[in-house]
C-alpha cells in the first residue's frame, strides 16, 4: 500500500502543479482573506483608502456589507442595489455617521434579514432606501449570509483557479503589475489592486479604471437611447410582486418598531428610457406609472415617505450625470440627497443643504 500511495503522490505532482499559479495570484491579490479580516482592516484604517473588490467571488458582498455596518455602527445608511452605491460619507456632516450598505441586500426578502442581523443597541436612525429593482423579481433568499475563510477556499477550488488563468490570458492583470500594486496599496482583491475599483471603507463604490467602466461612461447616453428604442421589445417590467411588497412591509414594520426612519425612493433612469416606459400604453406602462403610488401608500402607513425620482429632472439632474442608463454619478447623487434633505426633516441632523449645494458645484461629474 505504501508503494501505491507513493505512486499516487508522484502522479499528483502535475495535477497539483496547475494550482500553483492561481494560488499565488489569490495570495498576492489578497483574495483568500476572510470577510471579517477585510472588514476590520478597512474600518480600523478608514483614512487609508483601502478598497475591496474580489475578482473571483461575488457572494461575499452581503456578509461583507452586514459586518461592515456592524463594525462602523453608523447613524444613517443607504440601502438598495447598485444604484445606491454612489452615496459617499463626505456628503454628510460627519463622515463616520454614514455607511453605504448598497448591495448588502439582493432581494426584498433580505431587507428584514439585514435589519434583524444588526445588534439591538446600534446607532442606526435613518435608512435611505432605494427600492429600484427590488420589487419585481421573485424574492430570493441567498444562503451566504455568513462567508468564512472556507468559502474563499471553496471559491478558489471550484472555479476561481480557472478564472485566474483566463483573466491572466485575457490580459486583465500581470504578475509584475500585481507585485507593484501590492507595494503601494493595502487594497484587497485583484480588481481593487489592479483597477482601483471596489468598495471603500464608507461602503461606496469606486469605479476605478476598469476598461468596461470607462467605456460605459463614454457610451452612457448612446446606450440609454438604444435601450429606449428597444423598450417595446424588452421584457423589462413584470408586475410588482405581492410577495416582495409583503417583504417591504415587514421591513418597514421592523424599522418602525426600532424607531428607525426609512426614506424610500426610486432612483432616476436616463431620461429617454424613463419617457419611453412612461408612455407605454400596455400593462407594463400602467404598472410603471402606478408603482410609486402603491409604495407611497405603504410607506404612509408607517408615517414614512416615498419619493418617485425616476425622472432625472425631478432632482434637477440630466443625462450628463449618469454613469450608464440606470446609475447616477456622484454629482447626480448629491442632487438626489439635496432633494431628499429639503423634504425630509429626519435628514437635517446629518446633511447640510448649503454644504450639499457647494459640493454639487465642486463635483466634476
Amino acid at each position, binding site marked *: *500500500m505504501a508503494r501505491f500511495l507513493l505512486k499516487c503522490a508522484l502522479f499528483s505532482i502535475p*495535477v497539483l502543479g496547475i494550482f500553483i499559479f492561481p494560488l499565488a495570484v489569490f495570495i498576492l491579490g489578497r483574495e483568500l482573506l476572510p470577510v471579517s479580516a477585510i472588514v476590520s482592516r478597512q474600518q480600523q484604517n478608514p483614512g487609508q483608502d483601502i478598497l475591496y473588490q474580489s475578482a473571483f467571488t461575488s457572494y461575499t458582498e452581503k456578509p461583507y456589507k452586514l459586518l461592515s455596518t456592524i463594525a462602523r455602527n453608523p447613524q444613517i445608511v443607504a440601502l438598495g442595489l447598485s444604484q445606491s452605491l454612489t452615496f459617499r460619507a463626505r456628503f454628510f456632516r460627519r463622515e463616520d455617521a454614514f455607511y453605504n450598505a448598497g448591495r448588502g441586500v439582493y432581494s426584498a426578502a433580505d431587507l428584514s434579514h439585514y435589519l434583524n442581523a444588526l445588534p439591538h443597541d446600534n446607532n442606526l436612525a435613518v435608512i435611505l432606501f432605494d427600492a429600484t429593482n427590488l420589487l419585481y423579481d421573485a424574492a430570493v433568499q441567498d444562503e451566504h449570509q455568513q462567508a468564512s475563510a472556507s468559502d474563499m477556499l471553496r471559491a478558489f*477550488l471550484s472555479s476561481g483557479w480557472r478564472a485566474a488563468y483566463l483573466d491572466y490570458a485575457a490580459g486583465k492583470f500581470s504578475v509584475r503589475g500585481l507585485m507593484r500594486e501590492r507595494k503601494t496599496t493595502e487594497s484587497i482583491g485583484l480588481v481593487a489592486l489592479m483597477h482601483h475599483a471596489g468598495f471603500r471603507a464608507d461602503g461606496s463604490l469606486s469605479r476605478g479604471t476598469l476598461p468596461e467602466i470607462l467605456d460605459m461612461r463614454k457610451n452612457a447616453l448612446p446606450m440609454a437611447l438604444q435601450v429606449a428604442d428597444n423598450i417595446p421589445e424588452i*421584457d423589462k417590467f413584470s408586475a410588482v410582486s405581492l410577495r416582495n411588497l409583503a417583504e417591504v412591509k415587514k421591513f418597514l414594520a421592523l424599522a418602525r418598531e426600532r424607531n428607525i426612519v426609512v426614506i424610500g425612493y426610486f432612483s432616476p433612469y436616463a431620461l429617454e428610457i424613463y419617457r419611453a416606459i412612461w408612455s407605454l400604453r400596455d400593462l407594463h406602462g400602467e404598472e410603471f406609472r402606478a408603482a410609486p403610488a402603491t409604495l407611497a401608500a405603504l410607506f404612509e402607513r408607517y408615517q414614512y415617505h416615498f419619493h418617485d425620482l425616476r425622472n432625472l429632472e425631478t432632482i434637477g439632474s440630466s443625462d450628463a450625470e449618469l454613469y450608464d442608463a440606470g446609475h447616477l454619478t456622484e454629482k447626480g447623487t448629491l442632487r438626489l440627497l439635496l432633494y431628499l434633505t429639503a423634504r425630509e426633516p429626519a435628514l437635517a441632523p446629518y446633511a447640510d443643504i448649503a454644504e450639499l449645494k457647494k459640493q454639487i458645484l465642486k463635483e466634476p461629474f
Partner: protein
Amino acid sequence: MLFNSLQFLIFFAAVFLAYYAVVPDRYRWILLLAGSCYFYMAFVPAFILVLFFLITVDYFLGLSIARSRGVRRKMFLVGSVIANLGTLFFFKYFNFFNENIAVLARAIHWNYSPALLHILLPLGLSFHVFQSLSYVIEAYRGKQKPERHFGVYALYVMFFPQLVAGPIERPQHMLHQFHEPHVFDAVRVRQGLELMLWGFFKKLVIADRIALLVNHVYGNLGASSDLAIFLAAILFSYQIYCDFSGYSDIAVGSALVFGYDVTNNFNRPYASRSIAEFWRRWHISLSSWLRDYLYYPLAFAGKKVTKTRLYAGLFITFILIGLWHGANWTYVVFGSLHGGYLVLALWTADARKRTAAFIGFSAYPALLKTWQTLAVFALVCVSFVFFRAATVAQALYVLAKTKSAFLHLPTALTRWQSLFASGNFGFRSAGAIVIGICFLECVQYAQAKLNTVFIFEKKSRAVRWSWYYALIFGTLFLGYFGAQPFIYFKF
C-alpha cells in the same frame, strides 16, 4: 454529501486510509457502516431514522421468514412489503394521491379538502425500499439465507457508494461480500479510481454543462427560442445519461476501491436498436428488479400465458417504472410511453420486418442499424421531455416547439445566437459539451469493442497515466463546478 463535492473527496480519502491502514479486517464493517451513516446524515440527519426503521423491520422479518412455513411465512413477507411500500407511499405518494382525489372530488361536486403533508422525501428512499424488498423476497423464495448479523444487514442497505441512487443490489450478489476479507489490491483500487474519474468527467463536463442550457430553457420556456427548446430536448437525454451513469460509475468505482463488486447500471443505452434493448442497457438494476419481481409474476404466473396478458403486464410494469421516479403525472406519461413503445414493438414486429425487407433495408444492415438506433434515440428523447418537464402541459409545449424547430431547422439555425442569450450558458459551455460528447462516444465505442470499461488496462504505464491525466485535466478545465446535485438523488 454530494459525490461532486470537496467534502466527499476528503471523506472518501479518510475512509480509504482508515480502511486499509488502520482498521483490522474483521472490524471494517463497522468503519463502513459508520462512514455510511455519516455520509447519509450529511444531507438531512433525521432521515436516518426512517432508514433505521426499515432496516430493523426487514432484518427481523427476514429471520422470521426463514424460520416459518406456509401461511405464516407469507404473512411475514406481506408485512415487510406493507412496511416498505407503506413508508414509500407515505413520503412519496401521499400528497399526489390526495391531490388527485381532490380533483376527482371536485369533478363530482364533492366537497373534499385534502390533508397535505409538508415533509421532505428522504434521500434515495425508492432505492432503499427496492433493495430491502429484494432481500425479503429472495429470503421468501429461499434463494437467500437470512442475514443474522444486524450490522452487516444494515451495511447491505446503507453501503455509502450505492446508498442514495443505487445501483439496486440483490442480496445474493452483495451480502456475502461483506463477510469476505478484503486485502489491499492495487489493481482494483486503481481501476476503482479510474472509474470514479470517468464518472466525474461525465457528470461535471457533460451533464452539468448541459444543465446550464436545459435548466435555463425549462425555467424560461416562454422566452426561449424554438432552437433552444429543440436543443434542450435533445441534450437532456445526454444530461440525464451522463448524470446518472456518471453517478453509477463513481458508485461502482468507489465500491471497487474498497474491494466490493457492485452491479454496473448502464451499458451504452443510446446504441440500442430497440426500446426493449434500451431497457436492458439503461438503469439495469431497476429494470431487472421490476422484470423479476413484477413483470414475470404478472405475465407468467398461472397456467395460461396469453399475448394480452403479456402486453398488459408490460404496460403496468412501465407505468410503475414511471411512478417509481416520482409522484407526478409527467412520470406516469414517461412510463406509459415506454410501455406503449414496447407493446407496439411486439405487436408490429413481423410487419416491420416485412416492411424493411420490402423497402430493401434488410440488404443494408449498417443502414438499418443506424436507422433503428436513431429512431430509438428519438423516441427516448420524446419520453425524456415528460421526465424533465414540470407538468404535462409544459412537456406538450416543448414537444410542439421542438417539432416546429425540426420542421423549420434552417430558419431556426439562423437564430443560433439565442442559445447564448441568457443564463450562464456560453460559448465555453457549448464547446465543452461538444468536446465532451465526442470524447464520450469514442471512449464508449472503444469500451464496447474491447468489452471492458478499462480500455487502457493492458497498455504501458505511460499510456495509462496519460489517459488518467487526460481525464483529470479535461474535467478540471472543461467541467462546471457549481456542485449541482445528481438528478436521481431526488428519487
